[in-house]
């Protein structure tokens, strides 16, 4: 079927098999490989992207369900001048990533959290990121990064 998705501000249109998952559409059709696939049960969150501004696991919806809608991936997070988003900056400053595989999904989940709750407590950050698994950091610095980004954005 024909699917048109606005990805990081650009229209991507393609004829794809009906069963194409959004994550494969992003990786193989739009050519954006930051978004990773870490499981097959919607458990890990590595594939998290923003759909119309809210986080979704892109392995758990069909590309067809995103037809006519707007997706932002990690590649589209920095502004047009390449200025990094506060969450990206904070992840680096706080060493919130190691191998980097969960990072694109984790960052997008954090961005979504802060748009819904600009001033989260540590416990709220931990609960909000429950659907995003990381095996390297023990989450310690990820949580610090999200709290730091919230602080920088005037949330606290």
């Amino acid at each position, binding site marked *: 079927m024909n699917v048109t998705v606005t990805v990081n501000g650009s229209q991507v249109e393609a004829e794809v*098999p009906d*069963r194409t998952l959004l994550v*494969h559409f992003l*990786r193989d059709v739009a*050519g954006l*490989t*930051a*978004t*990773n*696939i*870490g*499981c*097959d*049960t919607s*458990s*890990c969150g*590595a594939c998290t992207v923003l759909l119309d501004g809210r986080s979704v696991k892109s392995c758990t919806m069909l590309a067809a369900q995103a037809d006519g809608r707007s997706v932002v991936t*990690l*590649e589209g*997070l*920095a502004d047009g001048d390449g200025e*990094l988003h506060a969450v*990206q900056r904070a*992840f*680096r*400053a706080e*060493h919130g*990533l*190691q*191998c*980097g*595989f*969960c*990072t*694109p999904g984790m*960052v997008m989940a954090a961005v979504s959290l802060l748009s819904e709750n600009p001033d989260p407590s*540590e416990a709220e*950050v*931990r*609960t909000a*990121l*429950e*659907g*995003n*698994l*990381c*095996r*390297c*950091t*023990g*989450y*310690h*610095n*990820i*949580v*610090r990064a999200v709290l730091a980004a919230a602080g920088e954005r005037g949330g606290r």
Partner: protein
Amino acid sequence: MSILGTRVVRTEDPLLLTVGGTYVDDLRVPELAGAARVTFVRSPVAHALITGIDVAAAREAPGVVAVLTVADIDDLPPPPPAPEGEPPPGSEAAPLPMGGPWAEPLLAVDRVRFVGEPVAMVLTDDTYAGEDAAELVSVDYEPLPAVVDLDAAVGGETLLFPAAGTNVAVTAGGPADGSAFDGCDVVVERTIVNQRLAPVSMEGRATAASWADGKLTVWVSTQNAQISRFIFAGAFGLDPAAIRVVAPDVGGAFGAKIGADRDAILVAWAAKHTGRAVRWVETRSENLVGMTHGRAQRQHIKIGGTRDGRILAYRNEVIQDTGAYPRMSGFLPFLTGLMASGPYDIGHVETANRVVVTNTTPISAYRGAGRPEATAAVERAVDLFAAEIGMDPAEVRRINLVPPDKFPYSSGGGAVYDSGEYVKALDQVLTAAGYEELRAEQARRRERGDPLQLGIGLASYVEITAADAAGGETAKVMVHDDGTATVYTGSSAHGQGHHTAWAMLVQGELGIPMERVTVLHGDTDLVPLGTGTYASRSLQLGGTAVHLAAVDVKEQARAVAADLLEASAPDLELDTERGVWQVRGDPASSRTWAEVAAHAGPDGLAADANFTDGQPTFPFGTHLAVVELDTETGKVALIRHVTVDDAGTVLNPLLAEGQRHGGIAQGAAQALLEEMVYDADGNPVTGTLVDYAIVTAAELPSFELLSSETPATSNPLGAKGIGEAGTIGATPAVQNAVVDAVSHLGIRHLDMPATPARVWAAINEATARTATREGQ
């Protein structure tokens, strides 16, 4: 001020945070354009004879390029003959797959031995077609009884390898006559389980390959590109020079990506066999049965000593479940034996182990690889001993820790510990945690019968890092005539921050700013020789090699600069703050690295180093965990975790802390949540991330890390390994905290993981026992 020892943010991060890493599935190199997708057909049964494979329907399916079974493997040399008899347990080398009757085939030949064993491969134009076609491969299995239970494995009624005549692959150490415990006032013994875990790197295994013009190129998610090259060369009978192995970004590994396993060899073979480039990226469900598992020991521990707290004797007898194929032979339990007595000065230490095969996924290294198992055993033993004599577990530890004046210390397990301040680490943690107040709070909760009980758990540990130090590591440092530098390293990064760390070493030694230093690793065309990353060896071996190469380049540059400045070499100095050479005390004479490199002649400034003089090092520390245990539901929450992890001189605290954080989380997860479970027929029942309980942010506290640096004496950086400290220290600390939370009910031990069901059942049983006693 030197950059060494400071908190430097990572050079790796800008790419990872903007366009993401380039993992095997992300490679868009020309050689892989149009690569076929590989889908494995894996055994759905644990133990069976294969009586037929029909691939006709699959071959006809849309999008299918090829369907390959063992019958197609007619172009490989026979595997080298295995040495006669049992291999010596625990040679300190990398993985030791056993040959002879235990040999592991590439694709199953006539028998499958675990759920997940590769039986056939389907090559298709795209992923979805591969999944469809794989379902069309029809395999006839004649089921055999599955061996899952360790006693059944030892009993040998059903054999996995009939030609071997036994399921016991390795036996080491002898039976005990008990005399070691003569003279002990108190002896406690118990059988405990160090359960099977799945490593679950966030990126699973992945391999891509192309074969063109007689050269094989393999991109593999591995910890060791160079070792992988020799594995492929051996498997294919190729000259290593005809093979290029590339480790692109690797999304976590934790020991389970050492070298290249049979799946990776098969993918590379498929490229060579069909002439078509191929790519395989496993699914998570595939990963949970196909990637090696870790731990899987049953231990019988026995500890004895005096009533005033002195431990006199300790024995740890291990049965190592090695899964369907003894890939590590006796190595893991060997390390468990070597580190058996931990940081304690114990007069009589005995170890023994048997390695048995079962119809389960093969066991290999997982973050700690034999040492967390040793530490968990001895830390449980110390707590059992403390409980038996009614002494505070912190006090028992203090009495028995090796004192600082005994180093180097020859342990009862057979290791020589290099340096340590064990009691100091314990006291540092007790003070920072507020141990006395925690005990007081625990007493108050017990007094009032609070349903939320407090548990305080301790683990003091010593571990061995760079156990194979003599294997060394390579580095090359070049300074170019534009003033930039390039580092080639045999070490291999998968998240640890090697690129940042190695650039810091170059800046520290040469004064070339780290943003002008490029670090290259994991490509055998660029770095043909190297070992790679495991056993927490990177900084102490690979980092030292970089340091030595930089020192060599510096001395070369001194001579060149002397020529340039028409001065004598000893009169020159390198100002590492400004990154310039000058006549001592005369800044006006300064020459930049670019000028010196340009003057160096055709060979430029370059030096190789292969650091092989290292010795294993012995990091140590103490972990204290505090849990809240809900006695009404059995649910345990880790609420504090305080640690000292002394790994010698720290190059970058940010990176070292990151290693500790990750390890602590994995350790706590083993204690509380994770277990790879099989049913009696050998079916994995935790084969997806819905069932296998990876710890999340919501189940962990922030960690309280204390610093302590006791320099290593065997390398110029003073570095010991930090990568595995977390799993080694945290696991028993959290387990001990859980037991401590219910010890007042008469509970002395709980196996891991401390799931609500297990804790609740133990509390119920203990309460019933008390009620029965009181009723009598």
